[in-house]
């Protein structure tokens, strides 16, 4: 980018137009640090935003994308990556930045819906004709059912699955701790392979033919089904599951230094617009905009979505009690 504007400047100088022409000022660039599987999503949204911004402000801007595991992305920003905005799939990863003072403390109040322009839940992908008859979480603890989902110890996606199963059991057994633990123990024992990330789990299920059911984000299982053949797989959305928010925030210190505060804010707000929400729904994410929700209603079966707070308190508490060293997950997996 820098090269392009440099070349343009040189060209302008050569043509004798001079350097003072305001139109030649380096165009602004916005860097969006995002999670791994959002590449295609933001590649679709960014050009639309650029057009939208130009129509509104008459300014040409560029959007850069950076993708990776969302925790690794957050760590990169902590170590100095100058991203203006973050669009992650884990609240904790934005919170890390807020704790370090890079993101506003009240970031979840700065935009609607807990600063989460879209959301999803965990759903099941089963093989053709659903031979094991899997409809809900309790079907997963049956003898002989093999489950594939990423390791909750190393994957945010896996943590959502674990918490959703927990939330279901908690509701089913009326909070009887003993029975919830038994349920979770069987659930975890039925896991065939613990890959370290979501894409690895998909590979195990699809390419290696392992397991009867893959558990991942609803958006992801729908995309997989579309990609690998809708005849070979079926998507099952359980009647109870978890609300998975996809939080966004402005990295204030960076945006300020890059002179992008207005642009960053507008970019995130744009994600709530009808236009963007329609694109998000097209990528199988659930959205909030009423007209869009109605339009895509049949793609998203009604289901009861428990929040992380309802299941185990705040994310901090959940990370501590469930996923920390020696936490509940470790205890449940103990032999």
């Amino acid at each position, binding site marked *: 980018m820098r090269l392009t504007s440099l070349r343009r400047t040189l060209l302008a100088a050569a043509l004798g137009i001079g350097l003072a022409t305001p139109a030649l000022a380096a165009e602004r660039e916005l860097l969006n640090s995002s999670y791994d599987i959002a590449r295609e999503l933001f590649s679709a949204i960014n050009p639309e935003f650029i057009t939208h911004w130009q129509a509104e402000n008459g300014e040409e801007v560029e959007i850069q994308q950076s993708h990776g595991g969302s*925790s690794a992305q957050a760590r990169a920003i902590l170590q100095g990556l100058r991203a203006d905005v973050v669009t992650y799939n884990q609240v904790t990863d934005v919170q890390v930045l807020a704790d370090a003072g890079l993101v506003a403390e009240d970031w979840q109040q700065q935009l609607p819906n807990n600063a989460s322009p879209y959301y999803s839940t965990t759903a099941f992908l089963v093989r053709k004709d659903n031979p094991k008859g899997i409809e809900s979480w309790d079907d997963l603890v049956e003898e002989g059912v093999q489950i594939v989902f990423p*390791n909750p*110890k*190393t994957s945010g996606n896996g943590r959502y699955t674990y918490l959703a199963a927990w939330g279901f059991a908690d509701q089913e057994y009326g909070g009887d701790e003993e029975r919830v633990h038994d349920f979770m123990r069987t659930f975890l024992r039925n*896991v*065939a*392979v*613990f*890959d*370290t990330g979501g894409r*690895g789990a998909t590979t195990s299920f699809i*390419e*290696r*033919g*392992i397991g009867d059911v893959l558990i991942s984000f609803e958006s992801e299982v729908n995309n997989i089904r579309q990609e690998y053949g809708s005849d070979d797989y079926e998507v099952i959305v359980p009647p109870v599951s978890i609300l998975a928010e996809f939080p966004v925030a402005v990295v204030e210190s960076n945006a300020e230094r890059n002179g992008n505060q207005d642009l960053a804010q507008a970019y995130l707000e744009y994600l709530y617009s009808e236009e963007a929400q329609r694109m998000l729904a097209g990528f199988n994410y659930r959205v909030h905009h009423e007209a869009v929700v109605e339009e895509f209603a049949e793609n998203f079966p009604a289901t009861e979505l428990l929040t992380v707070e309802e299941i185990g308190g705040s994310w901090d508490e959940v990370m501590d009690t469930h*996923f*920390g*060293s*020696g936490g509940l997950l*470790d205890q449940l*997996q*103990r*032999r």
Partner: protein
Amino acid sequence: MSTRSFAIGLGSTPKRVLPGFGLSLGISLTFVSLMLLLPMTGLFGQLAGLSLAEYWTIITNDRVVASYVVTIGAAAVAAIVNAAFGLLLAWVLVRYEFPGKRLLDALMDLPFALPTAVAGITLATLYASNGWMGRLLEPLGLQVAYTWVGIALAMAFTSIPFVVRTVQPVLEDMPHEMDEAALTLGASDITGFRRVILPHLWPALVTGTGLAFVRSLGEFGAIIFIAGNMPYETEITALMIFVRLQEYDYAGASAIASVVLFASLALLLVINIWQGRFIKRLHGGHG
């Protein structure tokens, strides 16, 4: 070994190819400090935050202990298999002439050249129940991918060059006449190999096997895709370290890493000492 070469360095005549003992030693020490000692210091710096009791709790956590068993067991199997086949490969490469020998020789370095993650994914694809090899082995009741066997396989793959490349030069230096002499003196093939050839190869073979074993202890990329990563069954120690890092628990990760490091260093030290004595004995010393 290091003490020996150091003694030679100080004691022998000052006839050297490289000029300036002071300069070359100085550069060497600086390099070693930057490349080896600095990261080690960093590792121990992380450990400084832990009390001895905390350190002990972390490294004796039962799931971590289970991972030592899996890792050491699989690495031992991989090392033994590599010792046998690595010796054979080195033998074939040195003693025989055949078409494609150069290619086979070059192939030996492939595990070093290939990114380990690629190796792991490839092995998992081959040995999964729907893969080329898995399809043949599964009916025989042998499951490789996502079991302990798969871990050993990935380890063997990534560490075979260590054995071949340490044995090969020693074998090349060994004159043909030695085994021929043994045969003309009436030794059987097996005795000739056992009493004449093997003793000369032992030090190199043990070093190569030891290096292969130590390399396997630390391998992550190749194994993680084929291991299945089930708690207590197929979790390797490197994954335990990775998990601690994901939790931003640098001290815990360093603690477990230090166990692997000490085990590796201890093993290499034992091999070095043994090798020193063995060579002494071989050359007629009264060790």
